[in-house]
């Protein structure tokens, strides 16, 4: 049981390049989330999904797209990377049953845009 895994762990892009970050969970969780964390700051929600085939915007969605084609995977795409997107990206999943929720986080992807 690997929990939440993220690929890649590190990446350096040039401005204007595109890339996709992959998040995978093996806990059969319904909800999945993408966050970004800038140095010394808290996490900010980018996009999230409440189930396979669904996506929704979080606090800072601009410049990102997501897809949830399979329940266990949640992809985050950057179509044209900008230096302002330099950050650490965390994926999380949660089972969500009833009123409460516990999120399980991946190890993060450190992205630098030059």
């Amino acid at each position: 049981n690997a929990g939440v895994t993220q690929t890649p762990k590190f990446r350096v892009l040039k401005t204007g390049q595109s890339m996709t970050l992959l998040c995978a969970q093996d806990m059969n969780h319904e909800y999945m989330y993408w966050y970004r964390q800038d140095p010394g700051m808290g996490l900010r929600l980018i996009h999230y999904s409440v189930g396979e085939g669904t996506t929704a915007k979080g606090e800072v969605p601009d410049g990102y797209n997501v897809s949830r084609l399979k329940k266990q995977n949640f992809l985050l795409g950057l179509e044209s990377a900008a230096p302002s997107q330099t950050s650490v990206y965390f994926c999380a999943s949660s089972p969500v049953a009833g009123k409460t929720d516990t999120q399980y986080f991946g190890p993060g992807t450190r992205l630098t845009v030059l």
Partner: protein
Amino acid sequence: LAKTTQPISMDSYEGQEVNITCSHNNIATNDYITWYQQFPSQGPRFIIQGYKTKVTNEVASLFIPADRKSSTLSLPRVSLSDTAVYYCLVASYKGSSASKIIFGSGTRLSIRP
């Protein structure tokens, strides 16, 4: 939208009890209070969650007064390994409410020998 306010940093010593208070004046009826711990270069880890009164697990206790406008995370007998950033979240999580999850800047706890 329940915004939270926490102290930016706190210092303590090994073996002491540490209490971190979070203010959330606009908490909604359906909101739960959750605390996470984050070590450098790692994702946050769930510590404890509650709705009202007191919740205790093997790691911490969470105290929530009747008006629910604040909460206090209590860490008993801290050790050096408790040095981390602690986040207080207030959210209902269900459906579209998941978009309102806000971590804030957290409290940086430093434990000294």
